[in-house]
């Protein structure tokens, strides 16, 4: 067995624990509680370790998600920029599906999803570059989840845990970016027919296109890029809402359509 440095060993151990927590559905204590000095850099390494593991098991990276895109969320975690996670083929559902994905303590968040037609390579990606690279836009609901007990997450905890991703549901009526006023999409979310929250796409850094540009530039630091046909979930349009199995959920975005699903 090859000799790992202490840091590499630690990263590998945390990746194992988080992966195990997901498969056993037994959430673990926060990394930052056990290791108060756990860095953001190490946290992304943990995330990449488990990304490689899923790929080795046959799953495919089909895009990225952006988290912590609203001022209230950033203030809550004491950060000033978003974070990101990986989206896998196994996580993808479509509006109307029953969601049979294994989840620990899921919450739902309505989002705007972008599907790219060309690679988007940082650094210095601008809003105009993003507009050029977008094939189409669909409404989406992200099912976020945490392998950390009671969602007691700090920034390194959520980053290591693939930005608290679970799975996601895409709408099936695509729009061209020129058809919609992307920073002004109103949204009404319901659970089992009762309205639970409302929001606007302006909640995402003031404009979801800014979040995509941020992601493209951030990925440059990690030596990866956004690929043609990849999905980008740009960030929550309102606060996340906890859901139980059997519950139905719906997000209506006015003329931009709607997305719905039901937990198994």
């Amino acid at each position, binding site marked *: 067995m090859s000799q790992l440095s202490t840091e590499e060993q630690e990263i590998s151990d945390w990746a194992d624990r988080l992966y195990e927590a997901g498969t056993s559905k037994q959430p673990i204590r926060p990394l930052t509680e056990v290791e108060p000095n756990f860095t953001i850099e190490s946290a992304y390494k943990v995330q990449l370790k488990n990304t490689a593991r899923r790929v080795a098991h046959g799953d495919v990276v089909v895009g990225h998600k952006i988290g912590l895109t*609203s*001022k*209230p969320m950033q203030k809550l975690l004491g950060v000033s920029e978003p974070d990101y996670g990986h989206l896998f083929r196994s996580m993808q559902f479509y509006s109307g599906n029953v969601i049979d994905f294994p989840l620990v303590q899921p919450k739902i968040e309505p989002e705007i999803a972008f599907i790219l037609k060309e690679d988007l390579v940082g650094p210095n990606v601008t809003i105009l570059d993003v507009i050029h690279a977008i094939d189409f836009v669909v409404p989406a609901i992200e099912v976020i989840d945490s392998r950390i007990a009671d969602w007691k997450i700090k920034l390194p905890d959520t980053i290591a845990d693939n930005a608290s991703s679970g799975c996601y549901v895409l709408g099936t009526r695509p729009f061209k970016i020129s058809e919609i*006023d992307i920073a*002004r*999409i*109103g*949204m*009404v979310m319901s659970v089992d027919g009762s*309205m*639970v*929250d*409302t*929001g*606007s*796409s*302006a*909640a995402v*850094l*003031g404009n979801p296109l800014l979040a995509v540009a941020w992601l493209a530039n951030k990925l440059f630091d990690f030596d990866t890029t956004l690929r043609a046909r990849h999905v980008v979930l740009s960030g929550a*349009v*309102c606060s996340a809402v906890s859901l139980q199995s059997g519950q139905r959920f719906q997000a*209506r*975005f*006015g*003329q931009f359509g709607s997305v719905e699903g039901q937990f198994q």
Partner: protein
Amino acid sequence: MNLQSVADKLYTSQTKVQELEKVTALYPGLTVDDAYTIQKLCVDRYLENGDALVGWKMGLTSKAKQVSVGVDDPIYGRLLSSMDLPSAEFSTKGLIHPRIEPEIAFIFGRELKGSHVTLRDVWLATEFIVPAAEVIDSRFRNFSFTLVDVIADNASAARFITGDQVYSPGHVSLAEMGVSLRKNGEVVQTGAGAAVLRHPVRSIVELVRMISGIGESIKPGMVVLTGGITEAVSVVRGDWIDIDYTGLGSLALQVR
């Protein structure tokens, strides 16, 4: 207990900018009906001094606010001419701890009354809708109150502004109309019209049903603020607020 003396206390608090203890702490037996009577007696003092009733406001129209006060129903307050801001700025002078919330206002061309009013009746009587912002200001210490207190305090009404441009009532789907509020350039609140009782038009129905119980109505020319679409945002002198209403333009407010 003398309801007039409670109304006088509130009038003094509102006009002299003095924080008050909760009236329910001073008079534990007050009912919701008493509270509405106090509200009217207090507003009558303004009217005696030359002010005018220009419309109504709805409060506690969101689930979140109803939960925070522990009620299932909205409340109403009275809008006075003196609360209507003539330009897109207001002074914190005369206010205790002001907060701003984005709303949709309905402007009426016909009278609307009766306990059996329907959604269709509301649309038929509505001449225009207009984006609006309300400055609320509880006269109670720390914005802390019970249902009875806030009703007596005119549903925290303080100031309001309506946009320059009006729209026909069917211009946009108000339930899914997005709203974003920026404070000093940063988006701090977003929401959609459905935050108001699933649709702002339902707020008007609730209002008319409530005020018809005391023989009141919405008169032609009146404005009604239907209720906050996002949480209220605290402001201090120097803040600037920009509110965007999808399809209905925007409002800017400078706090002096």
